[in-house]
């Protein structure tokens, strides 16, 4: 990794190339980054959806779909997601490299992405009212549909309960109740704000040449980079009302989620990687204590894992259990967490966890989209250590460091959906 070669860096626009000629697909991504806010989130979520419904040149979704098919199934992606208190919106196009098809589609692919970002109908003309209403309804449905995924829903609820009235609790798709009152004018406004008041990252991943990209960036994807963008430092305090919350939705299998704060600062590299190994030992896969002692030995659950969120300084432990096993499962899980804190794990556990993590890291080099996300994250978080240096640190953390990293693990809430 760290294969990103910077082309240009202004106050608020960074562009670069990740060169890789092993793939049959190329990718161009544009990321917009800004501070998350309750008042803007729903509008931005709707905007990103609306921007993919029509442009000046391709006014309807049918026109867009046909154009993408014509470009050998070019795939357009776009969404909003969260990194702690930052909102990241992106658009990307993935398309077949000219080497494998009868004609060149590279210029067309870039023009298409440029068209989506700079000429959306919603910003310059009036979108048909029926499409606007439909997209609003679609967003409502999208937010409501999260209920379908019980496992994901349980996680979201746990987070919501841990961070009430805090930027961390703002859902990345926005709030259903805000949708009706949004007007097309509102979206025009927020569109202008998106383009001028966000940090922008343009990344070309694949078989690209620096010179030709530099030339293209003069004409296409030309943002004004001369503005300073401020994003405040997040606060990591939780605000819990109740420490145990149970909800009933008539599920066949109980979904248990335990929320912890972990006190791991993203900038403290050594501690961060020590914690990563500790978490892997606890519940990072089939090699872990949770998997072996709660699932395999006790047949308590079908899935069980522990997942840290690096931006919110929290960890969630989740398990799918028989409803009547709730107390026992909780007891067993807490025991395993204590084991890691007290150093009750072997050198073999450490070596296995490290091998697992190193394998996962090295594998990411084989995916053009993973490489792009990783390099974008590092750029935007201003991570100075290289990816390979980080891997070396991971391989070297000691048992003491691993135990030390777990000392701030504090159980904040138990959430149970049945």
């Amino acid at each position, binding site marked *: 990794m760290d294969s990103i070669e910077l082309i240009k860096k202004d106050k608020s626009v960074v562009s670069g190339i990740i060169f890789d000629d092993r793939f049959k697909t190329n990718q161009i991504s544009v990321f917009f980054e800004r501070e998350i806010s309750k008042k803007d989130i729903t509008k931005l979520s709707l905007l990103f959806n609306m921007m993919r419904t029509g442009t000046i040149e391709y006014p309807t979704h049918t026109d867009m779909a046909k154009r993408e098919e014509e470009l050998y199934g070019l795939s357009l992606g776009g969404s909003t997601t969260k990194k702690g208190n930052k909102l990241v919106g992106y658009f990307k196009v993935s398309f077949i490299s000219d080497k494998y098809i009868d004609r060149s589609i590279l210029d067309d692919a870039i023009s298409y992405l440029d068209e989506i970002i700079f000429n959306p109908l919603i910003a310059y003309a009036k979108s048909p009212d029926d499409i606007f209403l*439909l997209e609003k309804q679609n967003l409502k449905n999208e937010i409501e549909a999260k209920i379908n995924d019980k496992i994901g829903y349980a996680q979201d609820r746990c987070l919501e309960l841990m961070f009430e009235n805090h930027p961390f609790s703002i859902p990345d798709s926005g709030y259903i109740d805000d949708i009706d009152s949004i007007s097309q004018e509102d979206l025009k406004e927020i569109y202008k704000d998106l383009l001028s008041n966000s940090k922008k990252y343009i990344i070309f991943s694949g078989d690209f040449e620096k010179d030709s990209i530099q030339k293209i960036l003069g004409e296409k994807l030309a943002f004004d980079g001369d503005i300073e963008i401020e994003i405040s430092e997040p606060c990591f305090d939780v605000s819990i009302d109740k420490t145990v919350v149970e909800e009933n939705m008539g599920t066949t299998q109980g979904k248990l989620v335990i929320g912890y704060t972990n006190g791991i600062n993203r900038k403290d590299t050594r501690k961060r990687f020590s914690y990563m190994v500790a978490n892997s030992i606890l519940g990072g896969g089939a090699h872990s204590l949770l998997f072996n002692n709660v699932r395999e030995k006790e*047949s308590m659950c079908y899935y069980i894992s522990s997942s840290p969120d690096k931006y919110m300084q929290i960890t969630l432990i989740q398990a799918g259990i028989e409803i009547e096993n709730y107390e026992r499962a909780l007891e067993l899980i807490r025991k395993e967490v204590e084991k890691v804190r007290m150093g009750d794990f072997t050198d073999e556990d450490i070596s296995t966890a490290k091998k*697992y993590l190193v394998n996962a890291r090295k594998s990411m080099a084989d995916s053009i989209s993973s490489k792009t996300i990783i390099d974008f994250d590092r750029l935007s978080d201003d991570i100075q250590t290289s990816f390979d240096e980080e891997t070396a640190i991971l391989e070297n953390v000691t048992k003491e460091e691993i135990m030390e990293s777990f000392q701030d693990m504090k159980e904040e809430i138990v959430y149970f959906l049945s």
Partner: protein
Amino acid sequence: MEKLSIKSLNQDYYFTTLKNGLEIYYIPKKGFKQKYASLTVDFGSNDLEFVPIGLDKPIKVNDGIAHFLEHKMFEQEDGVGALERFSKLGVSANAYTNYTQTSYLFSGVDNFYESLKFLISYVQSPFYTEENVEKEKGIIAQEIKMYEDMPTWTLMNNARRAMYKNNNVRISIAGSVESIYRITPDELYDCYNTFYNPANMKLVIVGDIDIDEMLKVVEEVNDLSIPHQKEIIRIEKEEPECVSRKLVEDYGSISMPLFLIGYKDRENTKTPIEKLKKEIISDIIFEAIFSEGSRLYDRLYRSGLLMGDLKAGYLCQKGYEYGLVYGMSIDPKKVKEAVDEEIKIVKKEGISLSDFDRLKKKFIGAYLMTHDSVSGLANNFVSYLSIGANYLDYLDVINDISIVDVRDRLSEMFYEGSEVLSIVYPNEQKDKVL
């Protein structure tokens, strides 16, 4: 190993068959760090009645046994589970069962040859006892209940039950909680001894490896004393052309109804290439009717009937063939009406040449994209082996397809009695009159 080349893809691959019938395929991906190996058994959840090796009468086994066997494979006599061993090697291992195959696989960056050796040896060592079989029942029961909580699973399961009267594809892969509780160690050994023989298995490797070293490892660990037999008599059931039930409705914890329309088809292809070609042509037809650029989708989208996309596709599998389309809608029956109308029109007027050309490009692009992932390429390759086809032939086959092929296929499809509508409504609607 024999070296073959697919010029249009600029891709070589290697193939050999060992003395005991094990087939080995290697697809080199130069420069990739990840290496992937899959040992696949030609035994799936559909194989519920067969003649065991050495006997002359067929036996019937319990639903869900192939999947159960897959779960139990990880248990080793010395007490150290297979997954744990792979973890210690730093590779990521897994297994899956579908209607026609069971696959044991691993992928990783380091320790490839050692992991490969272990993959083959652990699949060759079954270990079933009363105790470990009982314990697994609890875990699998949880897995089955997890699926039952998923409305999309219910949707699909109900559709298959309604489409097929006798074909075992109507039975869910994991079986039911009742059927798995009836499974015994002896039954597991019966299945294992017949199906898990090398001549009924294939090893697929994708990545950047040394062939000679790989062959050496495989030959070292391959147990030549295991009796092998390629031909296994599997009892197939007669299946009528038409679906068993036209409509099936259910409820689930969702906010909007899910629907799925299944289109049963006649199995009339003889060779693997024919099957592959039929699948691609049918897939193109389904795209033409249901994809985002289609007239039908535009109509449904503007009417507000659909939430999100329509997902559609066609499957040409061993023992069954069908197409399907699914999505979410506030009124699935209205969607079905619109779909029926559109199919009538398409059957009469056909698909335009410009639509056909454009969709062909889309399929070519989508196919090429699957080559960018070692595991994606490997999984697809393994999957097409179940019908005897070579996934690497796909590009040449699709380039060969003409609008005439589409016209001929269209005239056979969507026949009277071939469709089923499966709906899952939100639980809240249970008390309302439908």
